Each structure stands twice: as structure tokens, then as C-alpha cells.
């Protein structure tokens, strides 16, 4: 069939249905192929991202293990499962990191929190947020030093009631024009410290490489 004959059929419903169906089928198969091809590299990139973030909150001297491999999942106060990355030296937990989430001005703020075994903050880094650029984004370490002020603090230092922004009678600076964002981060970090305090025994229990690969999940229930 030559092109002209095909073109004459364009008015027919059959041609149009086939065209539409064919386009969708082609698009779907392209997407399936692309998804399969890119799934492994994307997972790899995300693991690299996570490792890079973990490296910012857990110093390399505190672990000799692969942080992503020694993950433990514990339920928090609301029952949500929290993945906790543990830094081990010779099977002993030296530090841990997990993600806490605050309700910011424009959505969730995900913060990665690194703690030593005494519950002192080794570092905190914002992983993702939707706060106003130029105002709320000062919580990013790339934009301001604000988040570094938490290093070394713990639930007793300052005392729990002072874990708030200055406007609420606490110890932490808010930003001019943005109070909700830092308030959310402070609240999220305090929540993380509470979570650690409630689960400390489980979290810092000595582990071996074999049981670390998931055996602790049973303890969580």
C-alpha cells in the first residue's frame, strides 16, 4: 500500500482508532524499556546520594561498615517504620543516622539526623524540602550555616523545653520572614532525639554482620 492510499484512509474511524492505539502502545513499550534500562542506574545513584548524605552526618572514623547494608527498621511513636543506618566499628554501634520529617511552610522537610551513642547530634542535613527560595531554604547547609548550630547538642543540652525557636521561648534562631520553617526543623530534630531516647537500648545493641542484615526486624515488633 503506498502512502497516498494510507492518507486517504485518515477519515475512517478504524484508521483513527489504530493510530491512537498504536501511539499509546508505542509510548507504553518505550516507557517500559526505558524504566527497565534505567532502574538499576537510578537505584545506584540514589544509594550514592544517600551515602553522600550519611557521610555528612557520620564521620568516617566512626564506622568500618557499609552504612546502607546495616540498616535496622524501628517503629516511631506514631507507628511509622523508621529506617536507621548504624555505624559500626568491629560490630559495636558507634553512631547512627535516620531521617526525621517536619511539616514546613510548603510541605514536608526531610532531615537526616546523625547521633552518637549518647544521643548527641553529630550532624543534621536537610535532604529535601519545598520551602520558599531565599527565605526558608536557609536550612540547607549550601545556603547558610544555620543547621550546623545543632552539632553537639542533645536532649539535655539544651533542656527539652528549650528545643524551640527563640520566638517560642527556645534557644534557636529563626530567619527574618520565615519562622515556620526553622520551627519545623527544630521540632523534627527534637522528635528524632525523643525517638532515640525511647529506643536507645535496641538501637545501640551490639550486632554482628550476619544479624545486622535484617535479623533485628523481629525485635521491633
Amino acid at each position, binding site marked *: 500500500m503506498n*502512502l497516498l492510499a*494510507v*492518507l486517504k484512509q*485518515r*477519515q475512517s474511524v478504524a*484508521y*483513527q482508532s489504530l*493510530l*491512537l492505539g498504536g*501511539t*499509546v502502545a508505542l*509510548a507504553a513499550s*518505550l*516507557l517500559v524499556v*526505558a*524504566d527497565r*534500562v*534505567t532502574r538499576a*542506574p*537510578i537505584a545506584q*545513584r540514589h544509594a*550514592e*546520594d544517600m551515602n553522600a548524605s550519611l557521610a555528612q552526618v557520620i564521620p568516617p572514623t566512626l564506622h568500618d561498615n557499609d552504612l546502607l547494608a546495616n540498616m535496622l527498621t524501628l517503629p516511631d511513636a506514631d507507628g511509622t517504620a523508621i529506617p536507621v543506618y548504624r555505624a559500626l566499628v568491629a560490630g559495636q554501634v558507634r553512631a547512627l543516622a535516620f531521617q526525621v520529617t517536619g511539616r514546613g511552610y510548603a510541605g514536608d522537610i526531610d532531615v537526616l539526623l546523625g547521633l552518637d551513642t549518647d544521643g548527641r547530634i553529630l550532624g543534621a542535613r536537610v535532604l529535601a524540602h519545598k520551602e*520558599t*527560595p*531565599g*527565605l526558608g531554604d536557609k536550612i540547607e547547609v*549550601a545556603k547558610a550555616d544555620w543547621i550546623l548550630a545543632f552539632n553537639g547538642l542533645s536532649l539535655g543540652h539544651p533542656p527539652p523545653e528549650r528545643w524551640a525557636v527563640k520566638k517560642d521561648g527556645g534557644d534557636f534562631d529563626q530567619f*527574618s*520572614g520565615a519562622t515556620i520553617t526553622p520551627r519545623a526543623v527544630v521540632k523534627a530534630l527534637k522528635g528524632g532525639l525523643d525517638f532515640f531516647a525511647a529506643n536507645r537500648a535496641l538501637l545501640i545493641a551490639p550486632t554482628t554482620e550476619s544479624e545486622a542484615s535484617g535479623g533485628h526486624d523481629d525485635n521491633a515488633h
Partner: protein
Amino acid sequence: MTTPTNRQPLIQWGRIARDGLWSNNVILGQLLALCPTLAVTGTATNGLGMGLATTAVLTVSNMLVAAIRHLIAPEVRIPVYIVLIATLVTLVDLGLNAYAHELHKVLGLFIALIVVNCAILGRAESFASKNTVLASAFDGLMMGLGFTLMLVVLGGMREIIGSGTLFAGASLLLGPAMGFLELHLIPDYRGFLVSILPPGGFLALGLLLAGKRVIDARIHAAQQRRTATTDPTTPA
């Protein structure tokens, strides 16, 4: 515009460029794509990122649509275009995420927004479906560059007024070598919040549109004066 005929119409490069960059500019002329425009132009850098990502998708989608324009039945053209564009955007998103991850971290937000950019469907419908692949590619490029230009101007206006900086974060988008673009224009500036929030986007856009009308009116007046002076029957 040209209608589909059997003979190849001459490509009017100059006219396509002028349309895309100024007279029929996506934002200033067609008033399309305002949702992503107002959403991302808090800074000039964000505008640039959105503009470049859109330019790439627009150029390729225009070429695709032009390539299959003779096969498309007019009655179902819109869903076909939409499926094509959405597929293309998703492929770009997956590809960048897997193989250009650093770029994706910066542009990822914008790529998802391109799907809802009606300017791309608009160009498929009003240009690519009636023109050759080459002309459509050029049209996509020019429309995209015009869009990018306006996003950068809009983002720059809002950023300078809103936070006193220009091209903040450019080194994240373009690499550390472009860090010199990041200017801190007003030291100790406390910021003007409205400019960065969505209402500021509407205000800045309104100023831009007014500016285009003023310039167009000046050009028009100048042209009329020129024709008047060259016309011997009218006194100068």
C-alpha cells in the same frame, strides 16, 4: 501561517526567529505556560534551568510531530500529541536521573513541570503539524530560547527585588566555573518577600507585558513616522 501543500514552502528563518524571540513569544505574545513560569521564576537561575529544559523538549517534540504530521488524522491529533510529549518528557526525566544525576538534581523539579506546559502542545498544533522537520526544529529552538530569555528576565527582576541577589545558585546548575554569575547586588538586604512569592510573579509579569506593549507602540510609531517622511505628498 503556511497550509500543508504538496510543494515545500520556503522556510522563513528570520520570521520564525522573530516570532519566537519577540513578537509571538511564549510568555509575552501567546501568554502560555504561565503556571510553570510563575512557579519557578523566584530566581534567575531557576528560570534558566526551566527554560533550557523546556527548549530541549520543545525542539524534539516539534521535530517528532513534524515527522509524523502526514500520518496523523486531524480528529485524534490532540491525544496523539499529548501522549508523545508526555512520553518524551518521561524518557528525558528517566535518562537524566540515571546518567546525568547531578543535572537531574537541579532540573528534576522543572522536568516534571514541562508535561503541563501547554506551550509545547501549542507549538505542535500551530506550527509543527504544518511544517517540515527542519523548520519545526528551528521553531522549537527559537520559541524555547524566547521562553528562556523571558524566564531569566522575570526571575532576575523578582530575585533582585526579593532577595538582592542575581543568579544565586548558578554554580549548582551550570557547574562551579559559572560561579562568577552569582552576584550579591544589595548587601545587608532584608528581602522583599512578596516579590518571591507567587503574587510577585504576577506583578513582575504584568510589568513585563506592559513593557512589551510600550516598546511595540514605539516601534509602530517610528515606522509610521518613517513612512510619513518618505511619502512626498505629506508635509514632514
